[in-house]
């Protein structure tokens, strides 16, 4: 069964450093998303991406964040200068239409 894969599973970074979280969506999907989940809290929307551009983003997705689909298969989330409050699980998701299938997440720890 096809699935969304994310790497790394755990990333530890120092405050102020840049991180890139990587995702390989399901191959025939057209819509791509990043969500995050702070420990014990609900899943929060960050950004959606369709037709090679951002289609919607939340207030959390400020200028420190960017997304890219560099080669037609990978979908990346970059955080330019990490803050302590960026520590969370980051989930990539993809879908053909309105549904969204999630990866297993990257646990980002900013120290």
């Amino acid at each position, binding site marked *: 069964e096809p699935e969304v894969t994310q790497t790394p599973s755990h990333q530890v970074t120092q405050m102020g450093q840049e991180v890139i979280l990587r995702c390989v969506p399901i191959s025939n999907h057209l819509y791509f998303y990043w969500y995050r989940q702070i420990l014990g809290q*609900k899943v929060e929307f960050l950004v959606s991406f369709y037709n090679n551009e951002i289609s919607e983003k939340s207030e959390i997705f400020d200028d420190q964040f960017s997304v890219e689909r560099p080669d037609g298969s990978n979908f990346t989330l970059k955080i330019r200068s990490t803050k302590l409050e960026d520590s969370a699980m980051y989930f990539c998701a993809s879908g053909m239409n309105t*549904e*969204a*299938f*999630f990866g297993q997440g990257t646990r980002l720890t900013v120290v």
Partner: protein
Amino acid sequence: GESVGLHLPTLSVQEGDNSIINCAYSNSASDYFIWYKQESGKGPQFIIDIRSNMDKRQGQRVTVLLNKTVKHLSLQIAATQPGDSAVYFCAEKGFGDYKLSFGAGTTVTVRA
């Protein structure tokens, strides 16, 4: 404002019994709903979805009911098994939106 929420944060169920997990939403423009199951340390797993032009949809051991009049969504799990222990989230999408908005989650614990 827009919100999606669950009535109860925890639910304890005897193995073999049916479970009902509830969710209320406030966005009148919501036209698509999904239930997700999340096990510890894993990503949300798609269970079942329903569009606003339907009021019931069935899957394998699961049924989703949608009452648009009172903006209420429920997930019924038949013959609950230990493997059903997880956090369950409802999520909704408004018409024309690209994002899903998630509720706070209900932790289901199945007692042997």
